């Protein structure tokens, strides 16, 4: 007998597709924020599924801080642009670039100018009224209360005390000109769900996720990759060659790698399950401004 039950991944997939279609149907000018990481990979995959045999009826936007891993940019251009043929906008804050902020020296300022500011100006510039993001509620405490459809005012600000109630799968998509909604189709996915889905669906990923011998320096208790000659060695630091991989991808001077021998997806999942530290641990920005770093960033308009 057929049992009319979906597995948890199939149910999550269906719910995410529902969200993506709802945005495509109700907004004038949606965009998918693409960050090259594994969550973006899953979101891209779901967007393709949602409109098959058609194409996603919205462009993708990558906010390039110019400090991303080289491999990320290669993957983005080769896979998303060429292979999938998706319309991808790359936004660089050229004004900000002139300030010449070194992320290794001032990560907070760098993130604010090159990421948050850059994102806000480009959303305003193109007039996007909805922007998909790959954030998950399990990632970080302040996200647990985030809606799937999260309202942002004219200044892209999030007001945690004043969120619209969200019931059933009925999403309120109404906004006035200038206002927008951030949409998180992966809200209910956990890190394990994401990995398992990537494995089951065979979704391509940048190879930074897989362990490989890479040139790295040990800094702030983690391995930072020497991705180009902009990384200035501090006194006492020396370049070593280690088997490392990255659990999240971002600006290379701010993204710590972990020593690992995991070169396949099952091995990565195995490592993730056996590890005792959370995913964001390798990221430096969470540590800014005490425990509530992310939350402050979100109010300002960073994801």
């Amino acid at each position: 007998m057929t049992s009319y039950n979906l597995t948890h991944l199939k149910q999550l997939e269906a719910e995410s597709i529902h969200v993506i279609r709802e945005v495509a149907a109700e907004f004038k000018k949606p965009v998918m924020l693409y960050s090259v990481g594994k969550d973006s990979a899953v979101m891209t995959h779901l967007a393709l599924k949602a409109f098959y045999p058609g194409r996603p009826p919205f462009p993708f936007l990558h906010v390039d801080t110019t400090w991303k891993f080289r491999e990320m940019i290669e993957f983005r251009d080769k896979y998303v642009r060429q292979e999938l043929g998706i319309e991808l906008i790359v936004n660089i804050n050229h004004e900000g670039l002139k300030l010449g902020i070194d992320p290794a020296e001032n990560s907070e300022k760098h993130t604010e100018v090159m990421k948050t500011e850059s994102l806000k100006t480009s959303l305003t510039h193109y007039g996007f009224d909805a922007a998909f993001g790959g954030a998950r509620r399990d990632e970080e405490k302040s996200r647990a209360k985030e809606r799937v459809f999260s309202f942002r005012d004219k200044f892209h600000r999030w007001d945690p005390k004043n969120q619209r109630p969200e019931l059933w799968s009925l999403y309120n998509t109404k906004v006035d000109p200038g206002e927008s909604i951030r949409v998180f189709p992966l809200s209910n996915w956990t890190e394990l769900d994401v990995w398992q889905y990537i494995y089951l669906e065979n979704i391509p990923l940048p190879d930074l996720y897989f362990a490989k011998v890479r040139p790295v320096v040990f800094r702030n208790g983690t391995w930072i990759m020497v991705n180009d000659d902009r990384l200035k060695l501090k006194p006492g630091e020396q370049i070593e060659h280690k088997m490392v991989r990255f659990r999240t991808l971002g600006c290379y001077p701010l993204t710590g790698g972990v020593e690992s021998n995991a070169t396949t997806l099952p091995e990565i999942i195995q490592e993730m399950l056996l590890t005792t530290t959370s995913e964001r641990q390798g990221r430096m920005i969470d540590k800014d401004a005490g425990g509530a770093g992310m939350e402050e960033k979100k109010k300002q308009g960073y994801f």
Partner: protein
Amino acid sequence: MSHKSDLISQDILAYLKQHEQKELLRFITCGSVDDGKSTLIGRLLYDSKMLYEDQLAQLESESKIHGTTGGGFDPALVTDGLKAEREQGITIDVAYRYFSTAKRKFIIADTPGHEQYTRNMATGASTADLAIILIDARHGVLTQTKRHSFIVSLLGIRHIVVTVNKMDLKGFSEERFEEICNDYRNFASRLDLPDVHFIPISALNGDNVVDPSPNMPWYRGSTLMNFIETVYIGSDKNLEDFRFPVQFVSRPNLDFRGFCGTIASGIIRRGDEIMVLPAKRLSKIKRIVTQDGDLEEAFCPQAVTVVLEDEVDCSRGDMIVRPGNVPKIGQQFDATIVWMATEALIPGKTYIFKQTTLSTIGQIDSLRYRVDVNSLHRSPAPDLRLNEIGRCSITVNQPLFFDSYRRNKTTGSFIIIDRVSNITVGAGMITDRDTAKGTKVAAWEQIETSEATDSTKVQAVSEQERSARYGQKPATVLLTGLTGTGKTTIARAVERRLFEEGRAVAVIDGELVRKGINVDLGYTVEDRSENLRRSAHLAKLLNDQGLICLAAFVAPSEAVRLRVGEVVGREKYAVVHLTADLDTRRQRDNKGFYEAAEAGRLPDFANVLANYESPESPDLVLDTGSESLSDCVDKIVELLRSKGFLTR
């Protein structure tokens, strides 16, 4: 538990395979402030190893600053979210938490216990399959408990676990636990809660949360974790009525025209005849398209794209259904509304109503009554304010395709949006207007609103005359027990005995009612409940004619059995619990139910086996495996006599 399985290190592929088959269960936790909700959630996450070391380290340091446990590890901090709230020391919004075990992935909607946050609870409850209602063992059932239970029943959550927390502070007392369970049952019998369970726990120390408590050996039921891992939710969704709200029309090229959407309910197969609403155009399903290949059949809640045989007009907001099973189509309907905005609901003002994929302008014509969430009392009201609940009549500008919320959560729900501020101001659940048909479970509630008509008042022959003739007082004896415990056999034997004595007696056999007046009912929790509700009224009618009524029903739910008592009158009601060991029951089962259930073919039956609640205080328990039929009959007759039902 997922994160401590040995399989991870030994055979990751096998582990992944195992975890691919998991189901998703959503639940909500409700409790008053300080009942231990955060502690319980923290405990579930902690014990299922969903916390990493860095998070733990952070928690431990925070326990010292914000914790309430004197610097020791405080599981409650796991769930505290935003900074401002953390400083106030209370949670004030809906937060979602995740954890998983080898069997299921869980999503917790963590909602506050605060007085004024009906709106948040309704939000969390709207997607939940199950509700955990926390009661502090020291305080017992409070007004808040009643309010939470009411909202849970209003939002149609079918499975309730009442966890009595802080048992450590009450010396792990069984009496205290029983007392609270009874209090809860007494008031819950007025609500529509088809499946209620009770578990005594200590969230702080973990008793009965994941592992059975050594401190409460008297409790032999499931631990909380075990319960939520195994509770059967398969029959909760509506697979009968196919409803496909068109969400998006896909026209990538001239040769392809597909209708994308999420199946709201029911099942559809390639080749099936369909009808497109509102145009009522007929066609057939040509293809069910997904990127992973075409499907032969699809069911709720899959997100698919369908292609029709014919070129029919169809756009977002239309609904594809089967010609023989259509929803109600109309611009007017009644609904229960939860108001969520500081600005009150004003009858006559226009709002945006969003239901499935349709948005339309409309207005609330009249507010029939407001429900006091604490007393459940209904009273007339001029408006509906923040966190108030009311029953309304609504008219919209464009026809909607809807079912009652009881029958179909997806097509029976809507949100209300303010046209100026764009804020979601309310949420509604459509009720059946003509209560005569189709209300199913909600019918229990009708009893309370409509003045129960007492048929004895209009009789020509008086109660006394009947009683004198038959030598008895009317009564209903419920024989409850699992299949194969001998309910029907014993009922018939008692009937024979009483008949020989010249008394007036009738048997209501669960199986027979299902072939007649209840032929429209299945075996879901709701349908079982409705089956008993109707049978209870039947018994009452027979009692009114002076008859003694023997009702043979499985009747697995304690709450439902109590309601039967409410209908027939407690003083006229007796419950006899029939038991027998599994072997005996299997032997007597000539229809092969047990075999089928063990083979996994009868999930509803298996569910009843697993979740049958023994009556808390039966008037009589008979082990029909060891006692002879005539002994059983003697004892039941003796019971009738001792209760004063037999007067000669």
